[in-house]
């Protein structure tokens, strides 16, 4: 029930915010904050007091709700939440508040409609994180896309139309691929079982004819990797992030990218265990190329938002590596990296937005020496840069360490290459500090330091980053509640690899 209430709260909050602005009833920003805060408190209370576990198909779920929707095609409104979903939804609500705060004074026109779009994106994201009916999942997948398109296209910066269209085409094309793959999967399930169903639990374990399975899996994989984004389908992201208004960048980096990773973990891998096992080495390689290549790209940028955008791709490379490394440690690391990256990238984008509001530029060549006039800003950005480069004691380290430790057991050489990312991370992170805060002041006029609103916003994220870095175990346990079933592909993959051997020894024995 809580899931329906949450999604309804966000959809409703969006409409209310729009209405509040239209009829001059209230500040739409406060309407958004209020509905997000209520949702967050509700969910926190729920996660603290909910200890009953619902078992569906051998998996443990914290909440679930199902309603009939289009019974003819086996489509139902099935929403459920396990630890992984819960963490992702918490992240979404939390960063939603951050997003509203970060764009507090940025939108000059249609403020209500802006909040409406923001809330609807978030509602879509919460839906994506909880939907367990593939058709419903797809609906939410689209719901989060279209308001985001508006946010970039209407309130974005100088090249917003190009960026918005690029974003739309990339995600829409991959969405189409996703839909197609879903239908093919459902069709084969129908052939095998005799009934049509979009239900996740029904579709788990569907046997696809060999040759076909790999293609269907690739459809899912490509759709999610575009969103992640992984190399080489990452190029929409630097444009979209750079041109989006601050709140848009915060949501894109902090939350929207996680839907891609979530899709891989929840759908692409468990639905196609054998194919995933077969494909894992390639996926890991793509992850590693992404880590190294985009880290170098980040260093090359002069636009601060573009730089941060590329670092996001680099960090998502770790997620891809972790998901396909095929062991629980790396998977835990991947999930932790998702949470950690949510904090650091959101904070850095919020900072980039703040600086653009102050000097009306994102070009780092026009910045320098800001520490003397804005020490609080400097210290906070230093904190998040240091977190992003994987300092132990902060969240990102736990994620990257677990990913690499796990991946090392799967492929030592590839992991050694991935570890080069640890060397490149300070190369790009510290150049940000150098160009913006150190050196002689280039701008004559001193810039304003972070206001109280910005300090509160950043402080919240700092606390979470420290907490996840110092005591990550609670989140790790929660995240990996259904790990066994999410990781079933490894065993299945191993079995299918081992079977011929067994057959051979049996044959030899006769």
């Amino acid at each position, binding site marked *: 029930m809580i899931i329906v209430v949450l999604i309804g709260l966000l959809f409703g909050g969006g409409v209310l915010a729009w209405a509040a602005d239209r009829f001059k009833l209230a500040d739409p920003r406060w309407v958004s904050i209020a509905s997000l805060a209520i949702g967050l408190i509700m969910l926190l209370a729920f996660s603290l007091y909910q200890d009953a576990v619902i078992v569906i198909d051998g998996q443990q779920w914290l909440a679930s709700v199902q309603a009939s929707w289009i019974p003819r095609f086996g489509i139902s409104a099935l929403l459920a939440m396990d630890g992984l979903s819960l963490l992702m939804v918490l992240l979404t609500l939390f960063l939603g508040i951050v997003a509203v705060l970060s764009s507090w004074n940025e939108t000059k026109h249609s403020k209500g409609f802006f909040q409406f779009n923001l809330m609807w994106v978030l509602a879509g994201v919460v839906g994506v994180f909880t939907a367990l009916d593939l058709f419903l999942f797809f609906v939410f997948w689209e719901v989060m896309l279209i308001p985001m398109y508006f946010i970039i296209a209407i309130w974005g910066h100088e090249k917003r139309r190009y960026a918005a269209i*690029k974003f739309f085409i990339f995600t829409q094309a991959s969405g189409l691929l996703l839909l197609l793959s879903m239908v093919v999967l459902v069709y084969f399930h129908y052939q095998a079982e005799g009934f049509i169903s979009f239900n996740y639990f029904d579709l788990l374990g569907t046997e696809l004819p060999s040759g076909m399975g790999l293609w269907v899996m690739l459809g899912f994989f490509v759709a999610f990797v575009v969103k992640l984004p992984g*190399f*080489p389908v*990452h*190029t929409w992201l*630097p444009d979209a992030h750079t041109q989006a208004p601050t709140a848009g960048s915060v949501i894109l980096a902090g939350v929207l990218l996680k839907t891609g990773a979530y899709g891989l973990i929840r759908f692409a891998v468990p639905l196609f265990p054998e194919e995933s096992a077969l494909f894992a080495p390639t996926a890991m390689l793509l992850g590693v190329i992404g880590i190294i290549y985009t880290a*170098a*790209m980040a*260093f*090359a*940028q002069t636009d601060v938002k573009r730089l941060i955008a590329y670092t996001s791709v680099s960090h998502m490379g770790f997620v891809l590596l972790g998901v396909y490394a095929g*062991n*629980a*440690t790396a998977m*835990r690391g991947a999930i932790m990296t998702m949470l950690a990256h949510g904090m650091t990238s959101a904070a850095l984008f919020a900072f980039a937005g703040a600086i653009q509001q102050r000097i009306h530029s994102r070009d780092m060549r026009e910045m320098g*020496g800001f*520490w*003397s006039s804005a020490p609080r800003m400097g*210290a906070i950005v230093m904190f998040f840069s*240091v977190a992003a480069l*994987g*300092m*132990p*004691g902060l969240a990102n*380290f*736990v994620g990257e*360490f*677990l990913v*690499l*430790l*796990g991946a*090392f*057991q799967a492929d*030592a050489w590839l*992991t*050694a290459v991935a*570890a*080069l990312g*640890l*060397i490149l991370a*300070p*190369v790009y992170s*510290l*150049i940000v500090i*150098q160009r913006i*805060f*150190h*050196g*002689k*002041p280039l701008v004559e006029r001193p810039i304003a330091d972070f206001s109280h609103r910005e300090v509160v916003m950043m402080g919240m994220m700092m606390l979470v980053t420290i907490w996840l870095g*110092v*005591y*990550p*175990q609670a989140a*790790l346990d929660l995240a990996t509640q259904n790990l066994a079933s999410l990781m079933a592909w490894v065993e299945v993959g191993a079995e299918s690899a081992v079977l011929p051997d067994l057959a051979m020894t049996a044959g030899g024995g006769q």
Partner: protein
Amino acid sequence: MLELSWLIPTFPLLGFLLLALGRLPKKLAAIVGVGSVGVAALLTLGMALELMGLPEGERVFRQTLWQWFASDGLSVPFAFYIDALTMVMMSIITGIGFLIHLYSVGYMADDPAFARFFAYMNLFVAAMLALVMGDNLVVLYLGWEGVGLCSYLLIGFWYDNAENGYAARKAFIVTRIGDTSMALGLFLLFMHLGTLDIQQLMVNAEQAWAVGSLWPTLGAALLLGGALGKSAQLPLQTWLPDAMAGPTPISALIHAATMVTAGVYLVARTHGLFLLAPDVMFAVAVIGALTLFISGFTALTQTDIKKILAFSTMSQLGYMFLALGVGAWSAGIFHLMTHAFFKALLFLAAGSVILCMHHEQDIFKMGGLRKRLPVAFWSFMIGGLALTALPFTSGYYSKHEILLATADYERSGMLLWGVGVIAALLTGLYTFRLIFVVFFGNDTSHADESAVGLNIKLPLIVLCVLSIAGGWITLPFEEVFPQLAADHHYGLFSPINLLTTLPPIVGIGVAWYAYLAKPSISYTLARSRWGDRFKRFWFSGWGFDRLYQHVLISPFMWFTRINKADVVDSVYTLIAWIMRIVHRLLSMTQTGRVQWYAAGIALGVVVIVGLGVMQ
């Protein structure tokens, strides 16, 4: 009381938080900054007494604070392990750290970012303590990265100069290369031994691996990579001279007494693993010998007072690595300790010279400061003598022990010993070159020591005492390290003993002759054709910076410059471009003329019919 040992790193950490979050006035900042380390030092003293009071064989204390993270078979508690080795390191960190904090109150008095300085310093002390106290390699790695971060922050402390920022980033990135190797070492050890707990790791390694087999060799080599980066040894040594851009107390604390010795500590802490990898141990010895040799020559050509000391630090760290390589663990840590005394003294004295000379660092712009700066002069004399390892100073005992152990080493021990002895001569030469140039000769300046307060002089005096008497301390390492198999038994007047003792004195003599008695000699030598070439080559640190510039940095910069727009995106741009062309071609057919459409339809019919006929 040992249960309270978690308080030792906690106090500096709290100090950091207070200094970073509260806007403390200078006085309060000084009290918090110095006080937190002072309390940690007192606690350390208490713990040390208690630990040594324990019965023999039980002088170990372990404490688990909380479960940091865990996953399949991996369990990383936030835990501390304290034995005699840890205790010695903790005493150095908090003791010398306290003195340097006290000194900094005077040195940084006029700096507007006083509180920020102490915040970073306190964070450093906390991280360094975590490094040596860590019970498992991940907590050690936490401290390891933490001190690297503080080193970065403090080298670039005066941030308005872009060169300082460059030096800071260079230090962080070069050491990160080593750290990454170390991280891979952790992964390898975990994969094969199933734990990251240091003590358990050593036990498992001994059980699972034969001496000289592949995995311990690889694991030790990867860990060594981390040690080389942190301790500025070949080939990752290039960051240390640039690190002198930071305020001088930093150079004393981080880049002489504590952080740069972390590599030595790591190797000593995991000596069980290194003993399984004799090839890696040999490599440690060779790298140490090469580094001390190369940096000795470089120190000879430097003119910046701090850079001379920096290269000398590198060279002395080389001695420690030499000791580790030949298995003289206790001697290595002993030298680590005495070096912490006299090198901290030298840096702090150099800082007081720099302060009195209004931030002049070129030794050839100084001269005759003996009378003007008596405290600095005597500090330099005592520190210099200890560094040169003149008999009865602290440096003598530790260095002598190392060189004699090297001579006994079975794999080209005499050669390594020879290199060490030549470098000992060089040490005398470059140290006293500095002292003679700065403190003797013509008095040209108006420097005045009266501005220097007690908080600067007191640490110098304490360190003077330690630099002399520190050699009489016996470190209780019987339970930590295996004893050397061959105990050297050289007579007082045996050739080896004499040849090990005398070279530094020869070095001092040469320095006296070439820089005081007949300075024209050093001038002519430096001006001669070959002399000039060697001088330039040595001055540049044997060309390592240039090599890395050409091999690593330039190609990377080139790649990022030409690919700023991301070549991958051109694929999608191409697709978009093709679509646009197709769109234009197709829209050309939509002319609105009926005859064209009719012709099109006719052509289509012909083609279809034709196809039908062909079938």
